[in-house]
C-alpha cells in the first residue's frame, strides 16, 4: 500500500482553476524581522553609549562582565522560553535555580563533589523540580501560572529552612577547585599555540553557547522540539495527533528547571557563593529576553537567537545607564520606559508589515 491514494482520487482532489491561496507565513521584508531589528537596536545603542562614555568599550571592566551577564540571563531566558514554547509560564524559574544550587551546594559542602559533578547534580535537581511542576500541571490540568506560583511560594518557604539548618552563614561557601578560576577566566586564557582568544569574552559564556546550541538544536531539528511546539499551538490537536502531550508538558518544564539550574550555577560562579537568594532577580529578565526576541506567550513559536538579542538589549541598556551615572531616582523609570518603547516599536513594526500583506513571524 505504498500509495493509498489512487490516480482517480488525486485527479478529483486537484482544483486546477482555484487560485493558490496567499502565502502569509512566507517571506517577510527584512525590516519587519524582529531579530534583525533587535540586532540593529543593540548595535546602535552600544555605539551610542560608547560615544557618550568611551569606558563602555573597556574590555576587562565593562565588556567582560556585560557578556557574562548576557550569557547568564540568556540561559535564564531560555529556561522561560522552554515553557513558553508550550504556552505555559514558569514563575518559579528563579526559585528552581535556588533549589538546584542548594543541592549543588550540599554536594560541594557535605559530599565534597568536584565542580562539574556538583553542577551535574544541580542540573538533575533542577530538571527534577521542573518535572514535578510539569507533572502537577499535566495531571491536574491546572494553569501553569498558578502551579508555578504556588511552587514558588512553597520553595520560598523551604529554602531558608534548609539553609539555616545546614549552614552557619546561610550560604555554602565551600568552593571546589576551578570555581574561582571560572569566574575570571576569559578566552585570553585559552590559547592554541600563540594565538589566544579575546580577554573580553568570559569562559563562563561557553555555558550559554552550549545551552543555546542544544536548545536550538532540539527545537529546530528534533522530534521532541517539534512536538513541543505543536503542543504549544494546540494541546487538543497535539493529543489527537498522537503526541504524548502530558509527557511533553513534563519535559518542557524539566528543561526549564534544568536551564534555570544552569543559570543559577553561572550566577553562583560569577558572584562567588551558593546562597538562598540565588535567582531572586530572574523573573523579569526571564520573560523580557524571549518576549522581546519574538517568542510567543501563547506558545507554538520560539526564537533562541531572539532570546539572546532580547537579553542583550536589556542588559546593554542597564549597563549604559549605569555608566551614564543615572542614579536610583531615575534608573528604574528609564528602564521601564525604554522597555515600553522597545515593545511598542515592535508592535508598530508588526502592524506596519501586516498592512503590507505579510505576517510577522
Amino acid at each position: 500500500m505504498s500509495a493509498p491514494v489512487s490516480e482517480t482520487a488525486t485527479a478529483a482532489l486537484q482544483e486546477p482553476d482555484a487560485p493558490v491561496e496567499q502565502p502569509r507565513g512566507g517571506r517577510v521584508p527584512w525590516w519587519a524581522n524582529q531579530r534583525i531589528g533587535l540586532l540593529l537596536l543593540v548595535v546602535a545603542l552600544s555605539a551610542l553609549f560608547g560615544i557618550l562614555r568611551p569606558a563602555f568599550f573597556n574590555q576587562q571592566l565593562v565588556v567582560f562582565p556585560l557578556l557574562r551577564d548576557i550569557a547568564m540571563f540568556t540561559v535564564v531566558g531560555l529556561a522561560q522560553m522552554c515553557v513558553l514554547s508550550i504556552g505555559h509560564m514558569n514563575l518559579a524559574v528563579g526559585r528552581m535555580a535556588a533549589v538546584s544550587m542548594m543541592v549543588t551546594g550540599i554536594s560541594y559542602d557535605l559530599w565534597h563533589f568536584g565542580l562539574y559533578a556538583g553542577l551535574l547534580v544541580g542540573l538533575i535537581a533542577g530538571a527534577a523540580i521542573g518535572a514535578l511542576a510539569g507533572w502537577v500541571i499535566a495531571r491536574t490540568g491546572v494553569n501553569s501560572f498558578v502551579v508555578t506560583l504556588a511552587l514558588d511560594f512553597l520553595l520560598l518557604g523551604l529554602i531558608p529552612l534548609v539553609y539555616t539548618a545546614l549552614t552557619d552563614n546561610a550560604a555554602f561557601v565551600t568552593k571546589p577547585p576551578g570555581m574561582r578560576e571560572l569566574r575570571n577566566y576569559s578566552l585570553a586564557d585559552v590559547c592554541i599555540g600563540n594565538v589566544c582568544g579575546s580577554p573580553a569574552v568570559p569562559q563562563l559564556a561557553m555555558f550559554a553557547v552550549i545551552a543555546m546550541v542544544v536548545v536550538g538544536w532540539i527545537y529546530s531539528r528534533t522530534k521532541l522540539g517539534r512536538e513541543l511546539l505543536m503542543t504549544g499551538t494546540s494541546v487538543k490537536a497535539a493529543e489527537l495527533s498522537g503526541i504524548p502531550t502530558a509527557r511533553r508538558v513534563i519535559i518542557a518544564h524539566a528543561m526549564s528547571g534544568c536551564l534555570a539550574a544552569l543559570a543559577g550555577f553561572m550566577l553562583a560562579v560569577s558572584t562567588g557563593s551558593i546562597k538562598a537568594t540565588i535567582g531572586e532577580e530572574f523573573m523579569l529578565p526571564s520573560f523580557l529576553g524571549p518576549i522581546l526576541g519574538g517568542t510567543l506567550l501563547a506558545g507554538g513559536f520560539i526564537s533562541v537567537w531572539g532570546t539572546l538579542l532580547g537579553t542583550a538589549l536589556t542588559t546593554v541598556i542597564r549597563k549604559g545607564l549605569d555608566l551614564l551615572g543615572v542614579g536610583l531616582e531615575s534608573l528604574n523609570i528609564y528602564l521601564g520606559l525604554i522597555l515600553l518603547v522597545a515593545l511598542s516599536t515592535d508592535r508598530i513594526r508588526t502592524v506596519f508589515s501586516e498592512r503590507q500583506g505579510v505576517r510577522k513571524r
Partner: protein
Amino acid sequence: ATGCSTKSSNDTAGGSSGNDASAGTSGGPVTLKDASKVKLALIPGGAHPYFQPWKTTAELDKTDFKLGDVTFNETGEWDQGKQNNVINSLAAQGYNAFGIFGVSPTDINSTFEDLKAKGFAVGSLASCPAGDTNSADFCLSTDVEAAAYKATKATIDAIGGEGTIVHLTGNNVDSNTQRRIAGVKKAIAETNGKVTELPVITDIDKDLQTAQKAVADLLASKGKEIKGIVTTAYNPAVAAADGVASSKLPIKVVAIDDDAKILSGIKSGGVAATVTQNPVGQAYVGGWLLALLGSKQCTMKTPGVIVDSGSFVVTKANVDSYDTERKAKTAELQKEFASQLTCQ
C-alpha cells in the same frame, strides 16, 4: 516634619566632621600628602536610610582630603550581581578607591579579590565578609554581634534582669543576621536562665507593613508574656516602637539606629533604648584610609584587618550627648588605623 534618620544623621555629619577633619589632616598621626589622583566610590548595598549619611560624608571626604573625585552610588538594589556591575562600571570610569557595603557577605570577598587584583584600594565598610577572611584592605564596620549583644544587655537592664524577651530581625538567610542572632543569644545565656527568649522572628525587614503585622500578631498572641523586645533591623524597629506604644502594654523596646522617630520615642519613654551605629565614622575614616592607600602613600601592615566602628547604647539619660561619644570614637578610630599603616 521630614524627620527620620536622614535629617538627624545630617546633623551628625555636619557636627562631627569639623573635628574629624582636623584630626585627620593636621592633628592625626599620618599626614595625607597628595590624594588628587584618588577617585573614591562609596557603594552601599542598595537604598537604605542607614547609608544616607555616607552621601554627605563623601562630599566631606572630597574637600577634606582633596580627592580627585567622589561618588555615592546606591543602584546595587540589594543584588550582588547588580552591585558588582556598578563597581565595575565605576572602575571603568577611573574610580580607583572603593568603600563597599557588600550585599552578600559570603560573596563579597570574590569582588574584593577582583578589585585588589586590578590594583585598587578597597575597604569593606559597614559589613565584613562572612567567614574568617577579609580580602579587602580593611574592614571598618559595626561588630554586629557586639551591637546585638549590647542591645540585648540594654533590654535585659530595661526589664529588670528577668523575664521573656523576643528578638525581631531581618533576612534570615544573611550571615549578618546570623551574627545578630548569636549576639542576642550570648547576652541571654549570660543571665543563667533568668531571661528567656521566644523564637526569633526573622524576615520582617522587607517592608514596613510586614513588620507591623508581625509585631501586632506577636503582641496579640504573646503580648502578656513578653517583657522586652530587641530589634536589630530597621523596619521592625519602627514597627515595634509604634506597635508597643499603641498597644499600651508594659513592654520595653530596644531599637536600632537613630531614626528621628526612635529618638523621640526614647525622649518620651516609649522606647527604652536604641543601639546606634557609626555610619559617618565609617565613611569618613574609611575615605581617609582609602585616600592613603589609593595614593600609594601607605599600605596596611596586616591586610584585611577588621576594626569595629563602634556601637552606642542610647537611653533617655544620654540621648542628648551620645553623639559626642560617637565623634570621639571616630577620632579614636583614625588613631587606631594609623598604627596599622606603613607609610612612606
